[in-house]
C-alpha cells in the first residue's frame, strides 16, 4: 500500500500533524507505543502560562510573549505568524470534530484539580474558569469515596480566591469509582433526566453555578451537561480530576476517530527497529516485527521521557529512542539541585533547525524527517505551562513543512 508519511508516536502533536496531512490528502501510518500524554492533560490547551524566566509570573497574552522567548524555543523557530496560523487551524478543526474551544487571544484562569487558578489559553465549553464563576455562589458536587476529585481541596482553593462555595454529595452512576468507568456510565445512562432530578434536592439553595468533576460522560459529554443544566436550572461546569484525564481522552478520541475513519492506519505497538535512506531520499522503516515500510516523510512525535520518546541512560544523559537523533541537554541529570536537574530533563530533546528537521550525526540536516512536541529540545512544558500549545504549533508546522517537501518531490 502506498504511504506518504509515517508518524512515530501518537502524541497530541502526532495527531495534529496526521490530521493536517490527512486533510491535504496524504496517506499516513501512525506507529504508536501506548497512548499519548493527553491522558495527563486535564485543563484545556496551555499555550504559554508563565514566562520562562519566572514560573510565578503569569502571562496574559501568550502570543505577544513569544518574541521574548529564547531564540531556540520551538515557538521562536516556527515564528509568531505560523503559530497563529496553527491555532486558527486548530480552532476550526476542533470545532468540526469535537467542540468549539474558546480561544480569544488571552489566557483565562481555569480551576485546577487542586482548586488553584491556572492560566489556560483554550478552554472547553463547560470548563470551569474564574471568569465564569467569580462573584457567584458555587456548589461543588462530590462523589463519595471517589479519590480523584478532592472536593475539599477545591473548596479551600476557591475560598482563597474569594469565591463563596459549598460542597454537596451526589451518587455515582457506576459502582466502580474510576474516572473512565464513571464517564462511560454517564454515557450509558438511559435516564439522565431522572439522575439529575434525583440530585436536585441536595443542591444547596441559592447556588448559581455547580461544579462537577470532569467525568460527566465520555462521548455524550455535551448531552449530559446540557441535561444537567436543563434539570438543575443553573450553569453546570466541569473541574478537572486527577489523571487519567477524561477531557484529554475525549480530545484524543476525537482526533483518532477522525483519522481512523479517513484511511489513516494505526499500528499500535509498532516501533521502528531499523531505518535507512533508500533511492531518491525515500525512508525505509522496519518495525520490530520485521515489516518493511517505505515512505517519503517521517514525523517523530514520540513524546518526552515520560512517554518513551526520550530515555535517560545511566550517566544522566537523554537519548532519542526511535532514531537516535542528536540531542541537546544543558547538563546531566545529576546536577547540584533538583530544580537544575528537572530543568535539564525538561529542556532536553532533539536539536532541530527552524523547519523542525533534526541533525544527522554524520552528515548534516535531514530533509524529510521532522520532529515535534516533547521530543524537541529548548522548552520546558512544566515550567512554562505550554505543552498543548507547542504540540499544536509544532505538529502543524511539521505537517506544513512535510507538505512542502511532498509537493516538491511530487512535482518532479
Amino acid at each position, binding site marked *: 500500500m502506498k504511504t506518504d508519511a509515517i508518524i512515530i508516536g501518537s502524541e497530541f502533536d502526532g495527531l495534529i500533524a496526521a490530521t493536517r496531512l490527512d486533510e491535504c490528502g496524504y496517506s499516513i501510518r501512525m506507529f504508536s507505543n501506548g497512548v499519548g500524554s493527553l491522558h495527563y492533560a486535564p485543563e484545556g490547551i496551555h499555550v504559554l502560562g508563565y514566562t520562562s524566566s519566572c514560573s510565578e509570573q503569569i502571562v496574559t497574552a501568550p502570543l505577544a510573549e513569544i518574541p521574548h522567548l529564547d531564540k531556540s524555543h520551538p515557538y521562536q523557530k516556527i515564528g509568531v505568524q505560523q503559530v497563529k496560523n496553527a491555532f486558527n487551524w486548530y480552532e476550526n478543526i476542533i470545532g468540526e470534530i469535537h467542540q468549539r474551544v474558546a480561544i480569544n487571544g488571552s489566557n483565562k484562569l481555569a480551576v485546577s484539580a487542586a482548586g488553584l487558578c491556572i492560566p489556560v489559553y483554550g478552554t472547553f465549553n463547560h470548563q470551569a474558569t474564574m471568569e465564569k464563576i467569580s462573584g457567584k455562589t458555587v456548589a461543588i458536587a462530590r462523589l463519595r469515596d471517589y479519590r480523584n476529585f478532592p472536593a475539599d481541596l477545591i473548596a479551600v482553593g476557591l475560598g482563597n480566591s474569594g469565591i463563596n462555595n459549598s460542597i454537596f454529595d451526589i451518587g455515582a452512576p457506576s459502582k466502580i469509582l474510576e474516572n473512565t468507568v464513571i464517564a462511560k456510565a454517564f454515557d450509558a445512562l438511559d435516564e439522565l433526566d431522572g439522575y439529575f432530578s434525583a440530585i436536585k434536592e441536595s443542591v444547596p439553595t441559592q447556588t448559581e453555578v455547580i461544579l462537577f468533576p470532569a467525568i460527566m460522560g465520555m462521548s455524550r459529554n455535551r448531552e449530559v451537561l446540557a441535561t444537567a443544566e436543563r434539570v438543575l436550572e443553573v450553569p453546570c461546569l466541569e473541574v478537572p480530576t486527577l489523571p*487519567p484525564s477524561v477531557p484529554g481522552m475525549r480530545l484524543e478520541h476525537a482526533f483518532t476517530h477522525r483519522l481512523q475513519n479517513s*484511511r489513516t*492506519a494505526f499500528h499500535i*505497538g509498532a516501533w521502528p527497529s531499523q531505518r535507512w535512506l533508500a533511492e531518491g531520499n525515500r525512508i525505509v522503516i522496519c518495525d*520490530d*516485527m520485521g515489516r518493511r515500510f517505505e515512505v517519503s516523510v517521517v514525523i517523530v512525535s514520540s513524546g518526552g521521557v515520560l512517554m518513551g520518546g526520550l530515555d535517560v541512560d545511566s550517566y544522566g544523559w537523554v537519548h532519542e*529512542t526511535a*532514531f537516535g537523533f542528536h540531542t541537546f541537554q544543558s547538563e546531566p541529570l545529576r546536577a547540584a539541585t533538583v530544580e537544575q536537574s528537572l530543568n535539564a530533563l525538561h529542556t532536553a530533546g532533539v536539536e532541530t533547525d527552524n523547519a523542525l528537521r533534526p541533525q*544527522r550525526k554524520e552528515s548534516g540536516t535531514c530533509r524529510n524527517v521532522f520532529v515535534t512536541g516533547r521530543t524537541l529540545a529548548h522548552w520546558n512544558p512544566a515550567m512554562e505551562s505550554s505543552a498543548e500549545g507547542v504540540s499544536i504549533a509544532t505538529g502543524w508546522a511539521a505537517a506544513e513543512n512535510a507538505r512542502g517537501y511532498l509537493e516538491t518531490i511530487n512535482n518532479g
Partner: protein
Amino acid sequence: MEQQVGTVFELRETERDRRTVLRSMDQCTKCGICHAHCPVAAVTGEFPGPMYSGPQAQRFRVIKSGFEISPMLCSGCGVCTSVCPNNVAISDIIALAKSEIMEKGRGVRLGQRLLNRPELIGRLCGIFPRLTNNLLGIPVIRSIIEWLLDIHREAPLPKVHGRQFKRWFIRHTQPEGPVVSYFTGCAIDNYDPDVGIAMVRLLNHLGYRVDVPTDLCCSLPMLSSGETTPARARARVLIDALHSSALEGRKILSTSTSCSLTLRSKYATCLDMTDVGCRDVANAVVDACEFLLDRHVRQLCESLKPLPLRVLYHAPCQLRGHRMGTPAVELLRLIPGIELELSQADCCGIGGTYGYHKNNYDIAMSIGKMLVDQVRRFKPDVIVCDSETCRWNIAARTSIESIHPVQLLMRALGKKFD
C-alpha cells in the same frame, strides 16, 4: 546505496521471552492508564485491574506464589499492553501468573480441560453433527452441561460441522502455481469450514497452490488457562509439522489472529520455546489479511466488484498483539460501494474461552454491551471480524451474520461457495 538515517539506540526488547516479560514489570510507573482502558475492570469490581493484577502483584509473586483469584478474571484481551506507554508486558505477566496458579493451585477444571481440546470435541461431536447441534440447542441439556462442566448455558457455542473442510479440500482441484501453506487450526476444520474454503479459493484465484500441512490446534486455550505441560507437548508436535514449510521458505498463512499470534509469539513468552524450529515457524507465520495487503492490492483492486453493503468491522483483541495495524480494514476499503464503520469497542467480551465459563459469562456480556449497542445503532448487513470466537459471540448476540474478511472479499469477487 542504502544509508542509515540515525544511529541505533536499542531500548525495546524485540523478542520477548518469559524472562523479559517478567522483567518488564520494573518499567511500570503506576500511571493507571491500563486501568482506565481495561474492559474487565470497567464492568466488575472483583477484578482489581491490570496494573494491580499484573506488574504490581508480580512483585509479591516473585517472593511467594500462593492462591489468588484476581488474575483469573483477566480476559487476556491485551488492551493494557497496547495502551502502556512504558512497554510493560502487562497481559503476558498476568497470563504467566494465571498458568502458575493453575499448575500449583486448584488445577484446571474438567469443563475447561474439554474446552482446551477443541479438536477433540469437534471430532467427537462431528460424528453426528446434526444430532449434537440439536442437543446443544436444548436448554435442559445446556443446564446439565453448566452444572457438570461450568460452561454457561447461554455461552455462544459454535455449530459443529464435522470434518467438512478436510473432505472438501481433498476433493478440491487446485491450479499450478507458487505454493503457500495454510494453517487452518482447529476452528476451520471442525466449526468454521466456510472461512477455510473461502481462503483456499481466494488464494487459488490469486494464482497460488495451497498446502494444508496440519489440522492440529495451536494449543492457545490450554496455554491461556494454565495447562502448560500438555500445551508444550502439543506445540512441539505442531512446530515439527510446520517446520518443513518454513524451511522451504513458504509463508504459513492463518485466518485466525489468535492462532497466528500463538505461533508468532506466545510459544516464546508463555512456554519459553525459543529454539530454532519455533523461531523459523514464528517468522514464517503471517496473517491472511496482512499477506494479501502486502502482495495483492493491485490484483484485488482490478477484480473486486462493487458490493453495496453496510459493514461493521470489529478488530479482535489478538490483533493488537500482532502490532500490524488493521490490515483487514485496509483490504475492506478496496471494495467499491462498501459502507464501512469501525467498531468503537475494544473487546467483544468473549476473550477466547473466557466468556464460556459460568463465572465469567456475566462479565463477558457486560463488556460486549458497547459493541452490541453500536450494532443496534448502525444496523449493518454484515459484521466482519478476523477471529472465530469473537464472530460466534457477536453473531449469537446480535443475530447478524458475522464473517471473516476473506469471505467478504470472495463475495466482492463475485465467487460463490460450494
